[in-house]
């Protein structure tokens, strides 16, 4: 087991290095660089010398392999450098937005799980009845509705019905819990609905599969109560694949809420990434993408371990 864990951790390194290489060169292929974008407002009056000076200042005049080596070496030592656009440390820029992104991601997950697991189980138990159809239509609708559109409609509804808009400024939950709640509940609902749809579908199919297993029939034959069979025997096994869906989706939520943050005007990590790409802020983009990938790979790893820990059949294989 220990050997397996070490191997898995070591295998992450080439993957992350690959992500680094990919995003580094992708960004260099993007037309225009930060010097040009920054002086774009001044029209054609900017001389090449000024641009060249700026590039030298940021180290963009050095050969690509040199830039890449320096960046990877710094990252390997935990130094993500400073944002090319604002000049503040990358980690500082990320940390002031991380809290919001993490809060939305965690609360959306909580909401989704709370909604999805009971509904998914119910749909499986009542397979092919109107209850099942209703729940399935509800969940497919969740997958089909773009969360940004749901966001627009929510804001519109609040405005028309209550003549009220959620606060624009983020306040941490321990400072002003009410303001925090009234701002974030809407994006959480919009994201959580879509997210719950995925979990619901997974739960339904997984429970359906487990209910057909022999040991469930045995439990029935023993005369156990329905409730006991469902909770102790069926759900325990059926929720295993659901857990991996949840953990992967959680990783996605932290860096991938690009569009939702745009609609609700939230200053989170997704928005930071869009800005960084627009501004050709190489250090910022590279670090953000790399950190998202780290998070993704780690969640994948945690899901695998959790899986093995919860399911002895996987562990002993």
């Amino acid at each position, binding site marked *: 087991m220990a050997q397996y864990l070490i191997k898995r951790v070591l295998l992450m390194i*080439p993957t992350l290095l690959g992500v680094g290489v990919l995003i580094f060169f992708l960004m260099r292929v993007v037309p225009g660089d930060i010097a040009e974008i920054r002086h774009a407002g001044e029209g054609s009056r900017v001389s090449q010398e000024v641009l060249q000076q700026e590039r030298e200042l940021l180290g963009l005049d050095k050969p690509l392999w040199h830039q890449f080596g320096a960046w990877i070496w710094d990252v390997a030592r935990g130094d993500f450098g400073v944002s090319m656009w604002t000049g503040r440390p990358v980690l500082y820029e990320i940390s002031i937005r991380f809290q919001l992104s993490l809060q939305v991601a965690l609360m959306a997950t909580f909401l989704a799980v709370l909604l999805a697991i009971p509904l998914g189980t119910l749909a499986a138990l009542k397979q092919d009845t109107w209850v099942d159809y209703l729940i399935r*239509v509800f969940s497919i609708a969740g997958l089909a509705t773009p969360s940004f559109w749901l966001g627009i409609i929510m804001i519109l509804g609040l405005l028309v019905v209550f003549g009220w808009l959620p606060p624009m400024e983020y306040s941490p939950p321990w400072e002003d819990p009410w303001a925090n709640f009234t701002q974030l509940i809407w994006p959480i609902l919009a994201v959580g609905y879509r997210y719950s749809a995925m979990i619901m579908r997974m739960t339904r199919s997984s429970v359906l599969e487990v209910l057909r297993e022999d040991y469930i029939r045995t439990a029935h034959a023993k005369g156990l109560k329905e409730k006991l069979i469902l909770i102790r025997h069926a759900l325990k096994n059926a929720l295993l694949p659901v857990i991996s869906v949840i953990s992967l989706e959680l990783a996605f939520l932290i860096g991938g809420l690009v*569009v939702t943050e745009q609609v609700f005007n939230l200053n989170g990590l997704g928005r930071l990434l869009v800005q960084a*790409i627009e501004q050709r802020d190489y250090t910022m983009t590279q670090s953000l993408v790399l950190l998202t990938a780290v998070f993704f790979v780690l969640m994948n790893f945690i899901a695998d371990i959790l899986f093995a820990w919860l399911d002895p059949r996987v562990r002993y294989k």
Partner: protein
Amino acid sequence: MEVYDYPPPGKEEQTTASRTHWLQRVLRFCRQRPLGAVGGLVFIIMALTAILADFISPYDPLQTNYGAMLLPPSGQHWMGTDAFGRDIFSRIIYGARTALLVGFSAAFFGATLGAFIGVICAYFGGKTDVVIQRFMEILLSFPMIVLALAMMAVLGTGIMNVIVAITIPLVPRSAQIIRSSALSIRNLPYVDAARACGFGHPRIMFRHILPNVVAPYLILLTAYLGGAILTEASLSFLGVGVAEPTPAWGLMLKGAAVTFAESAPWMAIFPGLSISAAVFAFNIFGDSLRDELDPKLRTQ
């Protein structure tokens, strides 16, 4: 004693037989899976709308009319007009063209490239498999929208570029699933038989293994179709997808639709409804197709 009368196995007989078989299957599908049939119907309607857009749409989707800005839905403009006085109904009709073009192309290329890669990985195994899998893993560790965003930054806006940007994140996802299906086929006796006959690798891979992963391939194709349309809408909404003035549903939700959401809500409601309806129909159709083709894949 009964006399069995076998029809001679003529070519014509065979084609009619296979055609009734095909039609029967469609009819059975409609009877057994009404939800899926409805999804399929919506899909057909949408495809017809996209193809016949020139004949159906009441106005030119690009024609601005500053005398008719932000008009509410009426007999003349069924879904109202936008901030440039363009007819929203016409733009939705032409938007179906964009959505289907992008959705279909991206889903098709994504699933197909992935299928080829998956079959190659499963067939050769060993080092080839490990190297390709590593590379796929790198692509998989980006959230889909992030990878598409980065690709769009490189490529610039435009329909063709959107298709490429959405296709690339789909490839590793498809390759993973097709690879696992192909792995189980690779060890079947008929593959060994083909090898014993002296067939080359490409022939075995693409004539013997590939046709047998068609079921998961079709399932992926329908599943990706909805996802690709959603991603296109998201990219266009962020302003890095399809460029104005091309009619695209995601693009219609951007800018003025939000600014004038209170006074002209029809600008935001109809494009969003179109996206939802289309993706809903594809998903429900794909679900039923999956149940029909391969009940074992339900966990996917």
